[in-house]
């Protein structure tokens, strides 16, 4: 069946900001969909609030709305654009839920918009736990025993039939949000209350536990002719009980006989048909009892998912792209396989390698939360690795994680908790794989480990073999290793760093020895067909085999090093920059080579660059590729900290580094030398010092004075950064900080309390500097710039200040010798402009600046780095009037980490960002808030309790809220100042003052807005209880005075109905 001609205009809904459980995989799928629908001649309208996505680049859709992904805003877009169809299956759970709401409320019918890809009843059958179980019963498939709860009492009744432990799964949530495993009645009640609040329909499945069973996933596609294919099977390394997003997963399935596999295949296809997914991709999860093979269906997602992104990267079969084509009427046999070109997409990929995905967590950022892995996803990113064998891929995956480890242990960094060794094996946790390897090193039985971990014996045996190889070279001199021995170590996935540790040598010597012995890696293609047909897409992985398939071209080529797994502080923004670099360099005629290991990203789409190497970003792996490809330059400044930290070693190894030299990067990092630069340029900066010892720290502190901003050097995202108000606190911190980064000293800066922070992103070509954007932060200095909201253009800074900021930025770029991107952070206090830091590389704000101004800053920078001067680019005047305000707001994951305090500080904690655009600042800010919380209170009770420092300044905020019709509720101290100002206020008790208190009021739903600024640094304070209760109950929660001021204006803008939608193409039409 050919493409549908009865639809012309298609609306796509994106997934909004990056949050845990929903990361950049939906940018990958959405970007693919936009591209393919556009190529097919459809007019594409896109709504997505996330400015750091490739899909929201103005050239991907015809009409791009960076607006909140809420039914209200999408309805406005529909009213304005009048699309014929809505494709809801490519924007994750957020996009799907939004589409459901629009369908159910009759909006789609009213505007004559057809749901394509998945109809409303299909989505409901797939997502509603109850309807799903009924459907499974109809086709004779087992699901775990269980029942549906709509209140705590229901849950307790169902418990009688399922018993403990029991799994709680909310309907219509993603990443297992609101779910969990309950081992006792208290846990059950807690999870049920939380889960009911998060499920949009207030429904939970209380399910019999199949903890310890084997877990599998199948990625299925179906077209309108009922052709069905399985794209990929995935086997979870961790048994049931760990969310698949938190599990190590392996493709293809390893321990199923064909008979069992085909049973699962038949079941997956039957499920597609029964649920009624007419076209597109779905993901089905199964559990298998290892004792008797009993198969139960856990769930299905009638949409593309994180697993489908993984399956696409693992097989070379682009699920999202094809799903979009199927949605508009094509059949699988009409779509050519991209990689073979000669054969159709209607087939099932066969892979002749093994893929391992390992999640990346960030528990160090969320102290106080439970680190056990359960059915609620907690990881913030993932790395994928491809090897011929499981062990090879496993080793690569572990060294891809950017945790400072060189593999699965045996790298000199193993530390084990001897007192709880078996517990670390039995209870799923981030460190468990290291314990498994160590247990095997210590001679523990495979069977013993299997019984503790419930992990399939085949996987444990594979690790045993890896450890055996590792132990066979341990303690031997490097020179004594024969070529076959070294080859074996490499084939089992050991890195040069591990081999160096095991042989008491160093990485360089291992590499040299390896090359001396003629042990060079080989590169093989990911071709969807196990070499049955020739592949035309250069998508490679490294392995140690006999034949190398890479044929380097003789074109001028540039290699781009990607950003690695997502983690806090290093997210989609850097991938965005890498992708833009690839596009720009390709436009200039260079061959582009991408290296990255993050399966969620657009950069690892084989369409993005001319060549893709799916490899870890370590010195060893990057050098191996450099030696094959011999690029004329390597780009290290676009992928954030991951590639940047390789810059020096690569340069030393003779690799040409493009753009800003590593020397300049070091200069900006070197406090002493950098302050000399600032002195020379006459730029002010906070008094600062460097300390390598405790004594030095005290000495510096006394010289500079408190408060102090303290941090380890060479970190991204403010890792380990704090504000110290006292010497005692400083000492406690410095002792810890040495653990964070032992090779680098601790940095101390005078903290400019109450200053306004300003970020600048600029590009310099050595002659000229182009200021991309000046961003005024909403939150005052002291909050990590990645966590604070900011606005383009500045909304309160004076013209003279802005001029001075621009001037400083330009002088710095020229003085440092920047060739490419540069980010400068300024603080403005008492009309004086200070430079806080300079980073001569792509910053997190580059995508936001690009979207807000219409200037693709990363592309401009890539062109500069490849030699094109700024003067040739026809860039518009940098201080032109934009005629609008763009606000970027950070998205915090506190809801995922119950127990962690939700205050903002110098250490970055946000996972993603949104953008709001409007003709005035309050409206833009309102949109940014709506894009995160999906609602802003428009009345009810505002609870205000602030620290003494803020008491005076909060009065106008309270007055404004009162005028807007809010009832004001405060604790005693704050209430007193309101009364003094003549604002009516009700008083409520603090937590320690007795009951009922503010936390009771929050739990009872009596409060709609919380403004609570931290009182001090003691944990478990009143403020902590208030903030965590607010997070848990989904109450808007503001923790800084600046944000409170902006929020009140935003609420007013919303209540006045001033929030209109605007397409990027209309904003920047003159620049496209």
């Amino acid at each position, binding site marked *: 069946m050919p493409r549908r001609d009865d639809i012309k205009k298609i609306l796509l809904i994106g997934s909004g900001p990056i949050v845990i459980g929903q990361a950049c995989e939906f940018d990958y799928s959405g970007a693919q969909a936009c591209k393919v629908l556009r190529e097919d001649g459809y007019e594409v309208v896109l709504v997505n609030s996330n400015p750091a996505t490739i899909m929201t680049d103005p050239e991907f859709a015809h009409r791009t709305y960076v607006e909140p992904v809420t039914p209200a805003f999408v309805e406005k877009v529909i009213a304005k654009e009048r699309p014929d169809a809505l494709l809801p299956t490519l924007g994750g759970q957020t996009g799907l839920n939004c589409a459901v709401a629009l369908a159910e409320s009759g909006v789609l019918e009213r505007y004559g918009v057809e749901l394509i890809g998945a109809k409303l009843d299909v989505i409901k059958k797939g997502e509603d736990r109850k309807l799903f179980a009924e459907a499974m019963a109809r086709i004779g498939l087992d699901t775990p025993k269980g029942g549906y709860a709509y209140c705590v009492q229901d849950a307790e009744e169902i418990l009688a039939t399922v018993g403990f432990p029991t799994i709680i799964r909310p309907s219509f949530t993603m990443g297992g949000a609101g779910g969990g495993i309950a081992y006792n009645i208290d846990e059950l009640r807690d999870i049920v209350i939380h889960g009911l609040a998060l499920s949009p329909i207030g429904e939970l499945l209380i399910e019999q536990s199949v903890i310890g069973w084997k877990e599998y996933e199948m990625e299925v596609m179906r077209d309108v002719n009922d052709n069905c294919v399985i794209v990929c099977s995935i086997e979870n390394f961790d048994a049931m009980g760990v969310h698949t997003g938190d599990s190590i997963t392996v493709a*293809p399935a390893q321990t199923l*006989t064909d008979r069992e596999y085909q049973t699962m295949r038949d079941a997956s296809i039957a499920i597609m048909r029964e649920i009624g997914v007419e076209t597109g991709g779905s993901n089905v999860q199964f559990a298998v009892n290892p004792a008797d093979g009993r198969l139960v269906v856990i769930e299905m997602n009638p949409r593309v998912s994180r697993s489908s992104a993984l399956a696409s990267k693992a097989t070379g079969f682009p699920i999202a792209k094809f799903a979009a084509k199927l949605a508009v009427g094509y059949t699988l*046999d009409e779509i050519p396989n991209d990689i073979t070109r000669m054969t*159709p997409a*209607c087939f099932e990929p*066969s892979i002749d390698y*093994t893929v391992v995905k390992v999640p990346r967590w960030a528990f160090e950022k969320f102290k106080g939360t439970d680190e056990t892995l359960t059915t609620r996803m907690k990881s913030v990113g993932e790395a994928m690795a491809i090897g011929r064998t499981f062990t090879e891929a496993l080793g690569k995956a572990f060294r891809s994680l950017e945790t400072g480890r060189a593999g699965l242990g045996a790298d000199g960094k193993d530390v084990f908790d001897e007192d709880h060794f078996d517990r670390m094996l039995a209870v799923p946790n981030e460190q468990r794989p290291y314990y498994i390897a160590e247990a095997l090193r210590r001679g523990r039985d495979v069977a013993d480990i299997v019984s503790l971990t419930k992990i399939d014996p085949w996987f444990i*045996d594979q690790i045993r073999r890896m450890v055996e190889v590792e132990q066979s070279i341990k303690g031997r001199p490097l020179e004594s290793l024969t070529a076959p021995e070294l080859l074996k170590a490499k084939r089992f996935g050991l890195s040069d760093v591990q081999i160096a540790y095991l042989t008491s040598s160093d990485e360089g010597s291992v590499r040299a020895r390896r090359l001396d012995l003629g042990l060079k890696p080989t590169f093989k293609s990911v071709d969807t*067909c196990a070499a049955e047909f020739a592949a035309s897409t250069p998508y490679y992985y490294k392995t140690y085999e006999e*034949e190398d398939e890479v044929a380097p071209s003789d074109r001028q080529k540039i290699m781009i090093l990607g950003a690695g797994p997502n983690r806090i502080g290093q997210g989609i923004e850097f991938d965005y920059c890498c992708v833009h670099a690839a596009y720009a360099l390709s436009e200039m005629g260079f061959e582009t080579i991408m290296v990255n290991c993050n399966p969620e990203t657009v950069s690892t789409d084989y369409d993005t660059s001319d060549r893709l190497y799916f490899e870890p970003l370590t010195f060893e792996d990057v050098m191996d590729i450099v030696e094959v490809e011999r690029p004329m330059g390597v780009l290290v400044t676009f992928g954030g900290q991951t590639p940047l930290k390789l810059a020096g070693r690569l340069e030393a190894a003779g690799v040409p580094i493009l753009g800003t030299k590593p020397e300049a990067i070091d200069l900006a990092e070197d406090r002493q030398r950098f302050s000399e630069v600032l002195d020379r340029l006459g730029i002010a900066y906070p008094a600062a010092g460097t300390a390598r010892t405790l004594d030095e720290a005290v000495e510096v502190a006394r010289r500079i004075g408190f408060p102090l901003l303290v941090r380890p050097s060479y970190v991204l995202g403010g890792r380990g950064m704090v504000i110290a108000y006292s010497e005692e606190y400083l000492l406690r911190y410095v002792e810890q900080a040495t653990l964070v980064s032992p090779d680098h000293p601790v940095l101390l800066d005078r903290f400019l309390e109450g200053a306004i922070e300003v970020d600048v992103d600029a590009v310099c070509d050595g002659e000229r500097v182009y200021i991309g954007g000046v961003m005024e932060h909403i939150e005052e200095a002291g909050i990590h710039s990645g966590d604070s909201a900011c606005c383009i253009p500045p909304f309160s800074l004076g013209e003279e200040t802005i001029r001075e900021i621009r001037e400083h930025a330009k002088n710095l770029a020229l003085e440092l010798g920047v060739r490419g991107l540069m980010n400068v952070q300024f603080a403005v206090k008492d009309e004086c402009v200070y430079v806080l830091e300079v980073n001569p590389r792509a910053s997190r704000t580059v995508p936001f600046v690009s979207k807000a101004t219409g200037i693709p800053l990363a592309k401009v920078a890539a062109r500069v780095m490849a030699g094109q001067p700024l003067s040739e680019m026809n860039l518009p005047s940098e201080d032109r009037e934009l005629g609008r305000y763009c606000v970027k707001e950070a998205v915090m994951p506190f809801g995922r980490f119950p127990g962690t305090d939700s205050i903002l500080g110098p250490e970055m904690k946000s996972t993603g960002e949104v953008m709001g655009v409007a003709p005035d600042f309050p409206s833009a800010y309102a949109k940014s808030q709506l894009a995160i919380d999906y609602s802003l209170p428009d009345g009810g009770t505002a609870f205000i309790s602030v620290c003494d420092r803020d008491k005076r300044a909060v009065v106008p905020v309270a007055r404004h809220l009162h005028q807007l019709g809010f009832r004001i509720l405060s604790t005693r101290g704050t209430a007193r100042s309101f009364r003094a100002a003549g604002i009516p206020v009700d008083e409520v008790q603090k937590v320690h003052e007795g009951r009922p208190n503010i936390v009771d009021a929050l739990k009872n739903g009596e409060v709609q807005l919380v403004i609570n600024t931290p009182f001090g640094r003691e944990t478990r304070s009143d403020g902590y209880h208030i903030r965590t209760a607010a997070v848990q109950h989904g109450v808007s929660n503001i923790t800084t005075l600046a944000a409170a001021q902006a929020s009140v204006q935003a609420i007013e803008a919303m209540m006045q109905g001033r929030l209109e939608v605007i397409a990027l193409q209309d904003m920047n039409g003159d620049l496209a």
Partner: protein
Amino acid sequence: MTERQPALLALEDGTVFGGFSCGAAGETAGEVVFNTSMAGYQEVFTDPSYAGQIVTMTSPHIGNYGVNAADMESRGVFASGFVVRELSEVASNWRSEETLGAFLQRLGVVAIDGVDTRRLTRHIREAGAMRAVLSTLDLDPASLVEKAKASVGLVGRDLVAEVAVRERYTWGGEAPPECEIPVDTGILPASPRFRVVAFDSGVKYNILRRLSEEGCEVIVVPPTTSAAEALALKPDGVFFANGPGDPSAVTYLYETLRELLGTVPVFGICLGHQMLSLALGCETYKLKYGHRGGNQPVKNLLTGRVEITSQNHGFCVDFGSIGTLDVARSGGLDLDPADLGAWVRAGVAPVLRSERFGAVQLTHVNLNDMTVEGIRALDQRAFSVQYHPEAAPGPHDARYLFGAFMRLMEGHDDVFAGPEKE
């Protein structure tokens, strides 16, 4: 770690692959081919159609879930040898009865692991399937290459006799002397609807299981059984099975089939499909490197649906050689009968007229290379497919063809109702 026994695989064109012995010690010759199935190595290894071949599995981890009696596709292993990337030392599956390594040793099968199987596969893809010798005894590459050159190939060779049963037996009944019937014999019909005579040319057990499940009493007969002997068993239908080697060399079998045409409904799979085609007067030819795997897309031209199929064949039928195009019965299209891609694009199942047997329809086409996958002799109550609807290993998409055979025996005309919508 224990020292492993080295092994070598030498191809007739001089290419040599090193590795380690992972089965029995010995030396074996055969045509080297590759199979891209990701699961189901046991079914592949016990498929008699691989007689005379050295099979390499493209999937790198082989043996992970061991071997069990229920997944046997014949009484043993008929392939000459196996080549894998990594043979699992352990078996992990609730049904596993022994490790694959132990199984291969027990049956005396030579196998090699540690091989860059992707390099081998690419080599076969580019240079074509070729003769090879696999040895754990002679580790001199030059000597092995010479042996490979001297070995007998597949073309013109009848391997059917080597793998087929010599005595007639009833599936699920008493086993013939040389046949160890595995535990799982399929669901035996309480009261059979049909009696089917199955000519054994190396039949996979799952075909017999599927026929039984459809309600057939299946009498398996040696391939040399005559048409009269077969008809004396009063069958409702006759089945021609898969099997090894060059179809054009098995003249006696397709001549028997030709005699049976018109007297009784006929269904053929794989070699059986080639037998029907040869009986109808088609020619067969050898593919460069064959179709072996579980992911081959086949379009049913009568329903428009695509089936993902299990395949194992190195020879193919030349549909155009059967006769002249019957334009009227081919959707009024006067396209080249040999250009299968054109018929697929047109969505029409063309009909050719053979002088002796009347109308023959092209029913199934492989979408990867647009080769013949199924035909039906419309005037002879006979149809056949090149691929394996019995799967084992592979997808079950084409299982409906067993139902089609039942409909044919019931006297229906529209046998290809197509895969039922579940």
